[in-house]
Each structure stands twice: as C-alpha cells, then as structure tokens.
C-alpha cells in the first residue's frame, strides 16, 4: 500500500518575478539602464541600503564599482547621504524596498531631498503586491504616502520597456523622483504597441470603443491582457497607461474619460490615496457619469473571483 502523494503546496512568498511562464522578459532592466546611463554621465552614482542585490542595483555596482556606495541597512542615512551627494553635484539613484523608503525614511526624503528640490532618484522595490512576504514588505500605500511630498515626481512603470526608457529621463529631470521598481526578470510588453515612455505623459496604449481602462504600473500589463480576453467577447477595451502618477497627466486622462464608455481604474495600490481616488472628481463632471470600479487585484488571474461591482456595472450597460 502506498501513501497518497500530498498535493504540492504553492508558495508566493519568495517569488523573484511575476512574469508568466513563457512570457518575454528582460533581466534587471533598471540596473542595466542605470549602468548604461553611467557610461556616458560621470555624475551618476548608486547607493543602496543592503538591498543592492534585490533591487537590481548590483548590475550598476558591478559595472561601476567606484560609483556605488553601500549605506548598510540604514535608510535614513541612505537618503540623507543621497541628498548630500546631490548637494555636491552628483546624480544619485538610491535603492531600497518601497516600504522602507516610504515608511522608514519619509522625513529624510521630504526635508533633505524634496524640499530643496534635489536631483535624487529614489528607487523602491516590491511596490504594491509584488511579493508574498506580507505587509512588512508590501508597499500597498507608498503612492498615498508620497503623493503629498512637494516636488517629488512619481513613476509607476509597467514593464522593462518603461523602466529602460524612464531611467535616463529621471536623471535628466532636475528634481527628485520616486520609481516603483519592477525587478529581476521583468516582463516586456509595451514593445508590441506603438508606445514610448515620456515623463509626465499618459498614453493611450490601446484604443477601444466600449470600455476604457486607466492603469499604471504592472496593472497596465493586466489591463492589456484583460482587454485581449474581452475582445474575444466582442468588448472593445481601450487602455490608458499613466506611468507618471505625479504630476498626473489629467489632460489626457480626462479626455479619455469624457466619453460614454465604461471606465475602470486598475492600480497596484490601495484605493485610498491611489489613482482611482484621483480620477473621480473629473468623473463627476463628465457626461454621463460613468460607472467606476477600482480594481484591487494587481495579480488578478483566472483563479480570482471577478469583482461583483465591475461585472454588474458592465452587465447593466449596453455594449
């Protein structure tokens, strides 16, 4: 008699990449882009708080060891020191996890970097729900925390294309920035669309007549996947990608919302203080008032239940 084999348990706690099997990816696009940028700009330096290896900063470190500065597990020092380096004319990229940047070091980013409007680029790994490590590591409210910070530009890239194109633009922009980092093997999506990253701009990645998704970060990838599935059901979905969260490209987004299409927001973040709460005021003046459904499922997959409000809203509207 043989013991029945136990079913293999699934673990999401240590995932290194949220790419799906077979999906096209690029390895460490942030580290590669930063190392390339540093080849031509001597002012670029990298710092990390004992997380170089886990924020793809190790690629920069290995390419430019004399310009990498290890600050240890000390986030207040990390960002204060980055400010000091910017004060003497360098262009620092300082990486840690988003939770630590936003929760542990807020005062240092606010007063030493943002208030004097220094060109320090804060790089935060594991934004939103991109780790199964639990609330200690999941930055589900980092955008809400950082949105009130003066001068700070916030970028939530979708994929490796976004990241590679964003890095030089972040360095070129004079003030401070916060990049929600996707690390490791990062999906490559947007190369299949007529798209380029422009700091401060939202882009209509995919046109559509029935529904408009407004999304940022990896949720744009989900939005594009959902749009393709819905196309099979003859629902024509537009996807508006808003990689720059602050300053928000209201002009483009408002133009896309000011139509009779059903509008949905998708973001890898709590709805409190996120983009879905950015959008409603304009919606209130839009004619007719569009139904809205903030999505809370950044890793939404076929295993998840559909959102009731969403499906009911869609069912009630003529397509």
């Amino acid at each position, binding site marked *: 008699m043989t013991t029945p084999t136990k079913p293999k348990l699934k673990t999401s706690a240590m995932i290194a990449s949220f790419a799906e099997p077979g999906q096209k990816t690029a390895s460490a696009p942030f580290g590669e882009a930063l190392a390339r940028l540093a080849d031509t700009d001597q002012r670029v*330096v990298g710092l990390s708080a004992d997380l170089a290896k886990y924020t793809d900063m190790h690629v920069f470190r290995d390419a430019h060891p*004399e*310009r990498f*500065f290890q*600050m*240890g597990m*000390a986030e*207040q*020092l990390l*960002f*204060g*020191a*980055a*400010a*000091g*380096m*910017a*004060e*003497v*004319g*360098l262009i*620092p990229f300082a990486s840690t996890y988003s939770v630590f940047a936003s929760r542990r070091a807020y*005062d*240092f980013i606010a*007063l*030493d970097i943002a*208030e*004097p409007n220094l060109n320090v680029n804060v790089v935060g790994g594991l934004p939103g729900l991109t780790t199964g490590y639990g609330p200690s590591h999941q930055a589900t409210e980092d955008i809400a925390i950082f949105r009130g910070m003066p001068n700070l530009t916030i970028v939530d890239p979708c994929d490796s294309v976004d990241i590679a194109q964003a890095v030089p633009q972040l360095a070129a922009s004079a003030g401070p920035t916060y990049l929600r980092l996707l690390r490791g093997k990062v999906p490559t999506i947007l190369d299949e669309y007529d798209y380029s990253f422009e700091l401060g701009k939202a882009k209509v990645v995919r046109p559509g007549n029935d529904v408009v998704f407004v999304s940022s970060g990896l949720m744009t990838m989900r939005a594009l996947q959902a749009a393709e599935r819905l196309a099979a059901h003859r629902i024509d979905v537009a996807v508006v990608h808003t990689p720059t969260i602050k300053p928000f490209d209201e002009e483009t987004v408002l133009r896309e919302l000011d139509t009779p299409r059903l509008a949905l927001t998708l973001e890898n973040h709590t709805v409190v203080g996120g983009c879905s709460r950015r959008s409603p005021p304009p919606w209130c003046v839009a004619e007719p008032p569009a139904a809205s459904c903030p999505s809370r499922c950044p890793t939404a997959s076929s295993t998840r239940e559909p959102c009731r409000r969403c499906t009911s809203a869609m069912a009630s509207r003529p397509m």
Partner: protein
Amino acid sequence: MTTATASDRARRIRDSAHRIRLNALHMGEVQGQGYVGQALGAADVLAAVYLDQLRHRADDPHWDDRDRFLLSTGHYAIALYAALAEAGVIPQEELDTYGSDDSRLPMSGMASYTPGMEISGGSLGHGLTVAVGMALGLRHQGSDARVFTFLSDGELNEGSTWESAMGAASHRLGNLTALVDMNALQADGPTADVLSLEPAEDKWASFGWRTQRVDGNDPEAILAAFDAIDDRDPVGAPQVILFDVKVGKGVPLLEDREKNHFMRIDEHEWAISREQLIAGYEGANR
C-alpha cells in the same frame, strides 16, 4: 592665521564670540524671543569655525571648493546668523530682520533662505546623514574640501545620528568632522534625565571615530582641538569634538536661571543681560 601667535588667535575668537553673543541678544530682543541660551553657549565654537577654520569666500558662499558647515540644529540659526555676519557673508544690519516675515533669516535655519546656510536642519538627526553624503561625494570628486557638521547632545537621541556614525566610520571619512554642542539640555529638561547619553565620548569612539572632548567656552581649548584634527588622510577615521558648553554663557542672569530649552526673557531683562555680557567681557579683558 599662520603668523598670528596662539594668544592672538584666541583673542580674535574671544572678541568675535562676544560680538556673536551681543548680536544674539539683540536679535532676541528685537523678536522678543529666540534660542538665546543656546546661542550664548555655542558662540565660541561658531566664532572659531568661521574666523579660524572654514575655507570659504564671503562674496561667493556657494564656491565649489568651500569647506561645508552644516547646521543640523536648525534652531541655533540665531547664532549662525551672527557668525555669518562675523564672516562677512551677510550684512550686519540684516540681523535686525531675524525671525520676521520676509526675512532671509528665519527662526529655524533654511538653506533656501540664507546665503551660507548649507542645509535646512531642525528636524533633528538629519545633518550628519547629509554630511556623510557630502563627504563621500567630495572625496569621490577629488575635492579636498572638508565637511563640518554642528549637532547637539540632544540630537544624539536620534537613531539616524548613529546610522550616520556607523556609515562615516565604515567609509572612513577622514574629511568629516562632527562638532557636538554638549549643553546638557533639551526640550523636556536636562539631557541626563531625558535620555541618558554618557559616556558620550566612549559611544563615538566605539563607533570608530577619533574623539576629543573639550571646554567649548574656552577659545584656547577650542583652537587646540581644531588643531588636533588630522584630516590630511582622506580615508582616515572621521572625527568628533564634543564641546561642553554652558547654556546662557556670558550672562550670569541667564546662566543661573532654571534652564529652559526655549528661554523666556522678560522685557526688562534684555538690557540687564546686555550689561552683564559687556561687563563680563570687559572684566576679562582688563
């Protein structure tokens, strides 16, 4: 500096510190308030920094090769403004505007307002973190500029100070010197009661810093401590000087009163304070 005798140097610091104290009292009186007690305590160290130590250009405060002086304790700005006037960075008469609306001299030091102010301190525990980055950056760029940070004993409560202390030692920032104003007083009372700090020098030493502890109201001792700084080795250990100072120094009325972080001075006491300060100074010079 090189031709002056030791006593000439000290005399110059003593005279400058006296003017800083007079100006601090003046600014406090105009405003009716201010961190006068701290300013009186720190005047000698600041005079030595600006008249004897810092390599700077009064007419070009952002000259690239300048030594940096970071005021981490933003509320000591009243003393720093007086020192900047001593250094010729801001005009003497501008001190009258201290703390008033539209002044370049706000109550808490802010870099964007004041020429010669490197950082906006005030949220305590920031100065040393920024100083570590400046020292690293300057060394990386091949600059021999030195970085000084002025912090207070109360500020040593902040964990970020010790993150920076570790970082500076780990990176062997020989171009960085921390100046700690040990006035033994913070907002809620004596430092010893609020959060026990001593032995402070041992703490810095254990973090890998070269340490000195001197009387911060004695110009000869202050200069000797600065002279003992050895920053010719850019990858040497960072250095700290702990300056024991007396809150209200030079004004017996204020030295003796029950110590308060934000010292209340009644209207009629400003004139008495000034008279006492001048009498003490002239007495010492007699």
